[in-house]
């Protein structure tokens, strides 16, 4: 007797499950979540806070906000940020002031933890929302964030 009831129960649960999948089969277009990824690059927008890559924004006269205080370098847990700095004479006060020579970012070592951006006192570095970061050579992932010839914006102190 249990043999037949097992067959009956088996068929019943099978069709219960099939009713769920069958429902989606009929309404496939409506509930679809998948994206046509490489084809929708133009319209695909990441969220504002998406952690893609660390960048240093420059304004139109090639000025950034980095004073070279090295807070990001100290905050970084895995040595992704390296700052080459020297001292330049401030034309107004005549004092020697720290300035960055190169703000080097090793993206190959970065874990996107965000501690550097949290640590920056002058908001000189921010997240960019890039999502296609793969390259053919690892050395291409080492980037200099400050543009050549750029200077720190006047009035920014750490």
């Amino acid at each position, binding site marked *: 007797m249990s043999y037949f009831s*097992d067959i009956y*129960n*088996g068929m019943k*649960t*099978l069709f*219960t*499950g099939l*009713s*769920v*999948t069958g429902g989606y089969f009929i309404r496939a277009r409506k*509930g679809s*979540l998948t994206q046509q990824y490489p084809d929708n690059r133009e319209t695909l927008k*990441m*969220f*504002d*806070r*998406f*952690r893609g890559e660390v960048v240093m924004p420059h304004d139109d006269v090639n000025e950034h906000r980095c004073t070279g205080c090295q*807070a990001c370098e100290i*905050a970084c*847990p895995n040595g992704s940020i390296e700052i080459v700095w020297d001292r330049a004479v401030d034309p107004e006060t005549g004092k020697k002031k720290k300035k960055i020579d190169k703000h080097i970012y090793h993206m190959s070592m970065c*874990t*996107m*933890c*965000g*501690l550097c951006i*949290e*640590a920056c006192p002058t908001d000189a570095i921010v*997240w960019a929302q890039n999502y296609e970061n793969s390259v053919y050579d690892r050395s291409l992932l080492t980037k200099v964030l400050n543009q050549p010839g750029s200077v720190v914006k006047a009035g920014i102190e750490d």
Partner: protein
Amino acid sequence: MTNTLKDRFKTEEYFVNMGPQHPAAHGVLRLILTIDGEIIKNVEPDLGYIHRSIEKMCERDSYQQIVHLTDRMDYLSSNINNEAVCLAVENGLELEVSDRVKVIRTIIDELTRLASHCLWWGVMGMDLGALTTYFYAFRDREMINDIFEETCGARLTMNYNVPGGLMFDIHPNFVKRTKDFIAHFKTKIPEYDRLLTGNIIFENRTKGVGILTREDAIAYGVSGPVARGSGFSSDVRKHQPYSAYDRVDFKEILFTEGDTYARYKVRIAEMWESMSIIEQLIDNIPEGDIQAPTKAVIKLPKGEFYQRVETARGELGVYINSTGTKNPYRVKFRSPGFSNLSVLNHISKGGKIADLVAIMASFDFVIPDIDR
């Protein structure tokens, strides 16, 4: 004559490696099986394939930097791990975080638990041969990941907690998205039940398989849904409430059967409880500071600090031994997966290899959490 026949058809025990690369192991875990035919005689886990010495790296890093390493242990409950470290450091500093931080941490914890259980449900079905569950679960998990991505900036390794609070405030869309998700997910769990829970093939493969008694669960130090499936009340959220768990009303799910099916039912019921916790908190997130003021270089006083939290897999303990410098002297994580793995040999003896796969799926192992 009978003796010679017996000799002729006698069986021998032999070894089979399950893993390190095995789809049912969910990571690089090698199980050395001693089997007789298809009957399991002994299971010996061999660990260390994804050991990254996180505990040793913690001794090198400052207290803020430790937090991001714990993302990489149990990556499916990353926010809960982060919170555990932050709470341990806050214990040491005797720092009280604002109510807003507590509530947001709790909501994100529960969302993390939902995402983790979602993935577990999909993978449990997939391990037992039902591929559909995987896609359905990932469809719903995607909505949670979007919430995380919008608020924290990352989908899995969030690193949203810092000692003293949160890195930044929640996104303006957070509350709406979370409510949308809860409304959506409430219609989906009954669908999960129709698809898998009541299915006769699934029930036959899980009911009465891998029975863990309450005594053994306690003896082996098992925690989380595995222990609660055996009737062992071990929910840290209930017994030692942290963050905002003391102000919400939720049941601790207990099943007494102790088999694979009971562990399955515990997690399904926990998803309902998680949603109820989120619903109680989401409407009135209190105002307050998002970060309590801390020094740029955190130095814990000399001593030992311990904090337990309930991750999606069980009890995670963070032990920090400080000598008063800016780095911890020793950090130890009591990970739930490691203790749960110890009981695997005990309960899978005498079963079939296919039963072992079902038991492994119901334990919901995350191997980086076991190896650290």
